[in-house]
């Protein structure tokens, strides 16, 4: 998709695989079974985390990159 000119934020947990296969925009998630979730949080906190992930993804697609780049969401609570 990137090759076709569609900047794509990859939200995934195994970021080393993503970097190795050359995905340019990577947003690390907290678990394989829940890329945009975190069941250890209460419902509201989980939605807040999800929102921050998506926002970071939007930042990533709006950022110029030249090689696999990781866009983490910081661990501290907002």
């Amino acid at each position, binding site marked *: 998709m990137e090759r076709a000119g569609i900047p794509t934020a990859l939200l995934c*947990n*195994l970021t*080393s*695989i993503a970097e*190795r296969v050359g995905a340019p925009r990577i947003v*690390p998630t907290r*678990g*394989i*079974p829940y890329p945009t979730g975190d069941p250890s949080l209460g419902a509201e906190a989980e939605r807040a985390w999800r929102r921050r992930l998506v926002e970071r993804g939007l930042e990533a697609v709006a950022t110029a990159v030249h090689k696999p780049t990781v866009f983490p969401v910081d661990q501290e609570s907002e």
Partner: protein
Amino acid sequence: MDASNGAPTRDGADTGLTRLVHTVRAVALGERTAYADGTLTVSGPEAAAVLADPALAEVRVSWASPGDPARIVKVLDAVEPRTKGPGGGGIFPGFVGPALPQGRGVTHVLRGAAVVVAGFVPRAQEAVVDMSGPAAPLSPMGATHNLVVEFTPAPGAAWEAVYEALRKGALALAARLAEAALDAEPDAVEELPGLPGPGERGLPRVAAITNLQTQGTFKEVFVYGRSFGSTALPTLIDPNDLDDGAVVSGQLGHPSLKNPTWVFQNHPVVAALRARHGVDLLCAGVVLSPEPVDAANKELVSAHAARLCKAAGFDAVIVTKEGGGNADADMALKMDALEELGIPTVALYAEMAGADGTGPSIVVPPTKATAMVSTGNYDERLSLPAMERALGGDRVDVAGAAALDAFELPTAVVYASLSPLGWGHLTCREAS
């Protein structure tokens, strides 16, 4: 202390384990469960009684033997009949026997037979064993006389309860079958070495890190009867404990990349190490490790496993996995962590190179280590012949066909064909 109550014998030394091997050359159903002159006879009603559980409305057993025009589909697990004495004597700790380390004394083995559970459970990926034809040599169960357990769940029973009942029943039945050979003269007596003592030097100490799938119900592995936690730290056990069923499969994912209970009982890497024990290496132990589902825990577990190996004084390590590409990451991280600590490592990888074999082979290769064994290409297609009997189900949905039909399948669907524990003879070579 008496071995038959399940407690380990105290003879004051790490004397290892003695396997009394009874070869099964022929099988039958009959009035009494018995073993004589290489023939194992099973009483259907007695087997059904052993398997009985409120979660199961009905169970039935039948034999499928090597060479039969038979296909077993929806294979859930396979167990080798073993016992340490009447009533089990401690076998399958945490299930049949009390949850205590075993791996000492004597264990009777009915070699050439297996209890195979087959049938529909949701979340199970389709798994096929052919007893004849080109796929037969690709599965360990293609070469064993299989007592196939088929079942009907009780109405309203939760699938977790059904699966648990099948697991407990299969283990109990496996122990019961082996009991029939307790008084028989063994065909072979195999002395398995104990762990090398601290003073033993000279030969390199090689250990096996055995990664276990730990993704919760239907995708888990049991150690001493307890589900190995996905964030548990790796632990060291005596390889001989595996012989007594300390590790039992509870996972229903990728069939070719499964480690059935039978294969844990006959851990191929341990067997290969034992074959060279005292010759050019010492078989120094087994490290059991979870395969966590997130990157942070994968890193911690892998780093810790490497430290554990260093602390235990291992000179080299062979790493195995269970599962697909996700599990490759666990192996790669461990290989790299071990190499960083100066411990050479080898890992057994299955390749996912596409049907024509030209795709990139390994989902997550190591970055520092290089020594990888290939257990074959997951995607390579096989042509399976039509069969006269099908057990475990009527259809093979992944092939869009009836279970009795001839059809094509990727090697991925044949049970344990890419054996991550190294049972198989498959590998990949470059074609012209």
